[in-house]
């Protein structure tokens, strides 16, 4: 392996990239847009259920509470009249999703066993869970007023939390989008590398290089270095600009490096298979879309399906989230990174093999 030759090819490739001023400007512009989008996203999560209440003279009623839960979970807003309550619910004022209209003499009627009617106003687009449970919520309130204890010994919800209790400190959209933005930057550079390779193949400049002392291995190594370097540097820059580099920087850098190698492998594959721009887009998208699944999955709460966990990029997404949100140490994410590393080896090997064979047939 002649490093002088590898260096010359790398220098040449970087020069070709930089010569396309438009590419340079638009890449920078894209980074700016992603960063701007990130900072526009909410940095906190509203996990409070807001209920409006019209209950004259019963302001402390809901302090009884149907369950002993986290304080962040419920907020009660009082209204002076049923009409005001109804308007507020319909308009969704202050995020109020439902309103309880407790009739005059509600407490007395319950204690007398008269089964008073409680009207609950609910927005039409209220989530299904609220539609199903608001009735039970109100009934529990009535039971509490009637001093009818539940038939089970219900623990306090703050005492039975499994894992880190994130009440009041949930993953915000910013937190969830962070890995996605990093992955988008990596993904875009896949196209650039694939285009570079396809141009070298279609223009037959690779043939000109390979009839010099430059070997195929040196040519391939240069492509890997260029692809990885461009993807890595942009991803690091992005994470730096969105304030993600602080705790666990080395772990993050390792994750990004592995991600860069992974997408470089994809770029090698796509560049080899595509004869022209359209082919490159087709093949690159074919490989990239499945790899995007874990990053998009991270946008939504809930555990990812088992097959999503098995995707090559899942470990990357999980690592970025764990490190940037929880400050997870390296040992906590080493397993995930290990899986990513294995995928890197496989994808990179596949890309190198396919490109090598393609070059040999030119």
């Amino acid at each position, binding site marked *: 392996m002649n490093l002088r030759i590898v260096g010359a090819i790398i220098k040449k490739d970087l020069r070709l990239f930089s010569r396309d001023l438009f590419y340079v400007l638009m890449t920078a512009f894209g980074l700016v847009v992603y960063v701007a989008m990130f900072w526009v996203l909410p940095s906190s999560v509203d996990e409070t259920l807001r209920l409006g209440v019209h209950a004259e003279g019963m302001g402390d009623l809901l302090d009884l509470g149907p369950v002993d839960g986290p304080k962040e979970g419920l907020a009660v807003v009082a209204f002076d009249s049923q009409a005001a309550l109804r308007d507020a619910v319909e308009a969704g004022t202050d995020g109020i999703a439902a309103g309880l209209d407790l009739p005059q003499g509600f407490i007395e009627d319950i204690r007398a066993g008269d089964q008073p009617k409680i009207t609950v106003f609910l927005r039409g687009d209220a*989530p299904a869970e609220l539609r199903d449970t608001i009735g039970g919520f109100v009934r529990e309130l009535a039971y509490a007023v009637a001093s009818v204890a539940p038939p089970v010994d219900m623990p306090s919800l703050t005492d039975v939390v499994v894992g880190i209790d994130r*009440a009041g400190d949930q993953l915000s959209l910013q937190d969830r989008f962070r890995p996605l933005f990093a992955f988008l930057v990596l993904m875009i550079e896949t196209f650039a590398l694939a285009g570079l390779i396809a141009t070298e193949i279609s223009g037959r400049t690779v043939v000109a290089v390979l009839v010099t002392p430059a070997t195929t291995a040196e040519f391939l190594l240069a492509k890997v270095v260029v692809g990885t370097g461009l993807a890595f540097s942009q991803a690091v820059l992005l994470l730096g600009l969105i304030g993600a580099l602080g705790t666990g920087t080395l772990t993050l850098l390792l994750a990004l490096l592995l991600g860069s190698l992974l997408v470089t492998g994809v770029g090698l594959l796509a560049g080899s298979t595509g004869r022209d721009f359209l082919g490159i887009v087709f093949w690159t998208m074919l490989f990239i879309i499945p790899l995007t699944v874990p990053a998009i999955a991270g946008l939504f709460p809930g555990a990812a399906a088992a097959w999503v966990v098995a995707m090559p990029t899942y470990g990357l997404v999980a690592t970025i989230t764990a490190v940037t949100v929880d400050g997870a140490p390296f040992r906590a994410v080493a397993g995930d990174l290990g899986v990513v590393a294995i995928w890197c080896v496989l994808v990179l090997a596949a890309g190198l093999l396919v490109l090598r064979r393609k070059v040999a047939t030119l």
Partner: protein
Amino acid sequence: MSPTIVRTLLVKDLRLGPRSPLVLWSLILPLVLTVMVRGVFGSLFDTQPRLGIADLGSSTLTAQAQLLDGLDVSLHRDETALRAAVADNAVDAGIILSPGFDDAVRSGERPTLEFLVAGESLASNRILVAVATLDLVRGVAGQEPPAVVEVVTLGEAGLSIDARMVPLLVIMAVSIGGVMAAAAGLVQEKERGTITALLVTPVSAIDVLVAKGLLGVILATLTGLVTLALNGGFGGSPVMLVLAVLVGALMMAEVGLLLGSWARNQNTLFTAWKGGAIFLLFPVFFYLWPGLPQWIPGLSPTYYFLQPIFELAVEGGTAGGVWLELAVAIAICAALLLPVRLAARYLEQQSFRAQRPPSAVADDDLHPTPA
């Protein structure tokens, strides 16, 4: 412009279609995206509170819980499995129903309800799940509620996330077929030099652009309609919907023609798309997150065909409710015709300039080459 020539060019491109990755991609993409959204992401889009139950004694509570629409109930074989699910945030909360739970509740023994809460569950979800559980337990115990609850629904029902994804799916399908088919097709012809070969025949640049544009419109309309069909159908006004898709396809194709005429190579084209596509695509985010300010998408031209499609296909709207946006979309398409005309002229100049010796001085080849 010659319709005969345009038809000839279009037929040539359509014949090449099956050999072109772009055409294949334009046809496959809607299916791929729809499968991903509906089948693959189904569970991930479900934001309902999730209750896990480890029913060790065949309690009636389990069956009752499963009847609730607002809770995503999952059954786990034992306490260990349930605890693992809670720890993994696979469920928001879990309850362990020991053998004889129902009997203990009915007999007034007040057994301890083993209730687990996932640390990452939203505070509001914890309360809702707990309340729902208590309500179910009181049902098992046969307790009569001390009050009657009447729920009055105000306003219209909201849309599922699947429905809110439709604009995203449609615009992706339409832009791949519309923008990329037209733009990439043009750039490809320029890179291969075939554009010049065409322009030295009776074919004019506008003939070329119209043919490429038609190809884009055809692909975009087809893929847009297929996407809609795969995602819920055409609503009550299919004719109007087809018109909206057609207008969207035309707009995207015009954008593609402008891009393709300007970009000198594939790299430039793709870079422009990478950087600029967000201005065309960003309205979809406002359908996904309806809480965001809804005036912003109006700043993008694509809003004016996306909104009619959304209203007609998803919200069941009528033609009367969308005519204004559609009229604006048509006006935008009309306004883009002039730039496309200018693009034809630019394309012609660009192609012929590429054929003349690039040096301003007389061609070096005519001068003796020094030994």
